[in-house]
């Protein structure tokens, strides 16, 4: 009988664990992470620059940091703070004061129901949606947003240039992260906006490899992904604005916005979409540190 008793204990244990797990339910976000702040106050002439745990974002943050330093600010770097849920509380509390962000994704964080998709609409709505403690400086022409891509070969043999051209093809499979299926620009959006019917296949971290290997025909890749260049992919144009425009934008604390605007706005203006891809290539292909990449970029563009 020993085994049966053990099983009963196991079932009871599992049930107890579940109850504990659900007890913290309610409205709270059970996955929310502590931003890791220690409530430490910064002196007013020190600017804290933060970044996401994303190499491309860190390069932009490093460019901001070096530009600020060149202008005489004391900069403290707080990189790789994780994803939006983790760092936004720290920004709203003023513990991090300058942060490279992306207009569309940030707007979606504050207003998940937004219908704006073009760059200017998104920027305008974002400025309104931000809490009083935060402000955005000028947006950059550089974007890092979702895009649909096919291999150059596939584009050529089927005469594809825009997403709408997909509507003429049958039996296509769309690959991307699992959540793409539920996004407004996912399979449903493709059918509604462009009349293209596609099957969906979750490809996780290997989306680009899957596209190249041919297990999927169309893939959701970030527009600044260096592999669009290195793997010879073609990004399909999006004339109907299926995707939310997501330009690089500096998110700053309102109380330092005026101080840093003169330094950072020229940086944003000089950062082009191609320039951003180039920065990413230097990181992923040439394995250079974000510090070196940022220093070179600033001197090439005559800033700082």
């Amino acid at each position: 009988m020993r085994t049966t008793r053990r099983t009963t204990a196991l079932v009871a244990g599992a049930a107890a664990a579940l109850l504990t797990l659900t007890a913290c339910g309610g409205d709270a976000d059970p996955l929310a992470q502590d931003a890791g702040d220690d409530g430490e106050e910064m002196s007013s002439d020190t600017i804290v620059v933060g970044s996401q745990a994303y190499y491309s974002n860190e390069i932009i943050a490093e460019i901001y940091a070096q530009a600020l330093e060149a202008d005489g600010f004391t900069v403290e770097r707080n990189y790789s703070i994780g994803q939006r849920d983790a760092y936004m509380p720290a920004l709203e509390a003023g513990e991090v004061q300058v942060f490279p962000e992306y207009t569309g994704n940030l707007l979606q964080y504050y207003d998940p129901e937004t219908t704006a998709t073009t760059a200017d609409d998104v920027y305008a709505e974002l400025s309104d949606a931000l809490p009083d403690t935060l402000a955005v400086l000028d947006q950059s022409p550089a974007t890092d947003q979702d895009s649909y891509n096919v291999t150059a070969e596939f584009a050529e043999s089927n005469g594809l240039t825009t997403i709408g051209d997909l509507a003429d093809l049958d039996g296509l499979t769309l690959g991307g992260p699992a959540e793409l299926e539920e996004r407004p620009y996912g399979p449903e959006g493709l059918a509604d906006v462009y009349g293209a019917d596609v099957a969906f296949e979750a490809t996780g971290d290997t989306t680009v490899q899957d596209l190249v290997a041919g297990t999927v025909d169309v893939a959701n890749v970030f527009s600044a992904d260096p592999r669009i260049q290195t793997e010879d992919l073609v990004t399909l144009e999006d004339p109907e604005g299926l995707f939310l425009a997501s330009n690089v934008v500096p998110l700053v604390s309102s109380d330092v916005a005026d101080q840093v605007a003169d330094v950072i706005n020229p940086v944003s203006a000089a950062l082009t979409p191609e320039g951003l891809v180039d920065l990413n290539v230097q990181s992923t292909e040439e394995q250079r540190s974000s510090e070196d990449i940022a220093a070179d970029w600033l001197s090439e563009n005559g800033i700082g």
Partner: protein
Amino acid sequence: MELFAEALAWIFSSDAQSGSLPLSEAIATHLAFTFVSVLIAAAIAVPAGWVVGHTGRGREAAVALSGAARAVPSFGLVLLLVLVFGVTHKVGASTTAFVLLAIPPILAGAYSGVEAVDRRVVDGARAVGMTPRQVLGRVEIPLGLPLLIGGLRSATLQVVATVTLAGYVGSWGLGFYIVQGIQIRDFAQILGAALVIVVLAVLLDLLFALLERAVVPRGVRARHETSS
């Protein structure tokens, strides 16, 4: 409790039954990954474990291997094998990772089961004229079966929980809902899928508990009952 109720509601909702991966298909692929992986692992580890237990040779290696393999991070292994095998062989790559995960407990169950047989019983079997092969086949293996089933049981539980990771590389298994749910912040879906995994694990565990009792040889059971 609200989230718990929402999770249960998700399991029976039409949302879960539609989409690119209906729930029934997710359960089917989840169990298929589990059974195929455990079967392949058993085909390798059971004979190996019996030989190790019977001869005592290679015991050190088996102990070291089953200990070390437990420390292998399964998530890393799945992704690594997908990259090594190539994205066209994701199913094979994931299965290989789960097989590697299932081998240590089965190996341990197989050799310790044979090893744990009372030496006097083995001597007795030899004394009545059994060949080494007969000692293994008629004495050591039957008497060691409960421990072997125990090994299969823990391997199955470990694999059924770990197959969740397959959701990171493709549209398979219940892990798909968890991976998707985290990104779209659908906690009912995450917990719902997790609950289904828990139910599968508990059911499989019950099944093995019954099997473990059923394989105790009649003579051994009779002795246990009289002595306790």
